[in-house]
């Protein structure tokens, strides 16, 4: 086995070149290049973490904005509802007052008409009383020949007609 047979002749060369090569690998590649590779990876991880944090931040902000928008929408809806309610109420009030006015005017007209009718009725009744007085005096005179005075007749007619 050359590994053992040659060991005395080659060990110095093997160890020297191994230490030289491995030392170079350790200092140039392990300490130099590898640390830069690791730095790159760390930077990338850092960057990814930062980007994720920014995205999360933006998501929260968007949710907040949406929330605010929802609030505004809700408030606007309330305003609109109030405005329509107020308009409805105003219209209803105007209608009611207008109705009351018209009602009052109509009532006044009705009262006027009723008063006119009452007047006509009274006038008619007075006329009927006069005619009845005359007719009663005439009838009494013709039937009994007695002369009844007008006051008596008038009183009797009144009683008959329910005026008393």
């Amino acid at each position, binding site marked *: *086995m050359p590994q053992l047979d040659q060991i005395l002749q*080659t060990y110095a060369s093997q160890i020297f070149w191994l230490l030289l090569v491995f030392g170079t690998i350790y200092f140039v590649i392990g300490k130099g290049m590898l640390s*830069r590779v690791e730095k790159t990876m760390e930077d990338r991880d850092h960057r990814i973490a930062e980007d994720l944090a920014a995205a999360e931040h933006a998501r929260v902000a968007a949710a907040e904005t949406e929330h605010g928008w929802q609030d505004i929408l809700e408030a606007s809806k309330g305003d609109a509802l109030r405005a329509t309610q107020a308009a409805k109420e105003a219209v209803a009030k105007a209608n009611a007052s207008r109705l009351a006015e018209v009602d009052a005017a109509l009532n006044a007209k009705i009262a006027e008409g009723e008063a006119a009718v009452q007047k006509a009725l009274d006038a008619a009744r007075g006329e009927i009383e006069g005619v009845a007085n005359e007719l009663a005096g005439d009838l009494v005179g013709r039937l009994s020949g007695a002369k009844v005075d007008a006051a008596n007749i008038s009183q009797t007619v009144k009683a008959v007609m329910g005026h008393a």
Partner: protein
Amino acid sequence: MAAEGGKIDPMHQFLVEPLFGNNLTVGGYNIAFTNSALWMVLTLAVIWLFMLGGMKRELVPGRWQAAVESVSGFISGMLRANVGPEGKKFTPYVFSLFMFILVANVMGMLPVGVVPGVHPFTVTSHFTVTGVLAILSFSIVLIVGFARHGLHFFSLFVPHGTPAVMLPLIVPIELISFLIRPFSLGLRLFVAMTAGHILMKVLAGFVIGGLNADAAWVAPVVSLPVFVLMVGISVLELLVCAIQAYVFALLTSLYLNDAVNLH
């Protein structure tokens, strides 16, 4: 693979040969640039090229950058799971370990032998290499353990809730199991890679021997089934390459956990 006298020597692939003369000596030690050193440098080059893809530093990674990031994320995830947040400072070491072993293992499997004169060499099939890596890991564990906990680090050998009567038995067992770690760590990788490569070379020898046999029936009866088996074994070996690199890195991080968090 070397055909010596018509035979294939499955051990030849592990031979360490100087490439540019055998005379580079420093302080009495021969540190000649060998084929083993060449493949270590190639491993370094491949890892460096791979990591270049991760240097684009784009926010949305391309395929290559994503591959680099997933490997580094895999190692840092392993340390985070096994050691905790303090494991982060060991990421460069465990990453270097994992990448070096993984790439060296896979490079040893490359079929560059089809080019005449070029032989793949598996650096991690040499105990001198895996042993140094294991000792490195073990030393870091010792240094971190004693630096953080001082002499209290020895309480690692007393598992939680051990009765005082059992201490004379438990402490030596724990001590031995602790001291055996660098050997098991280095030997496991060395043995797995060596055994896999010997197996493949022996099977390849069967295929070639069958094709060169004088009797015509040997080729379809021996070479063909063995070749099919080799395809399967090759896939299995690629899996072993990744698993051994993972196991080495995982055990290192588990041992580091002992050193950092004691129990």
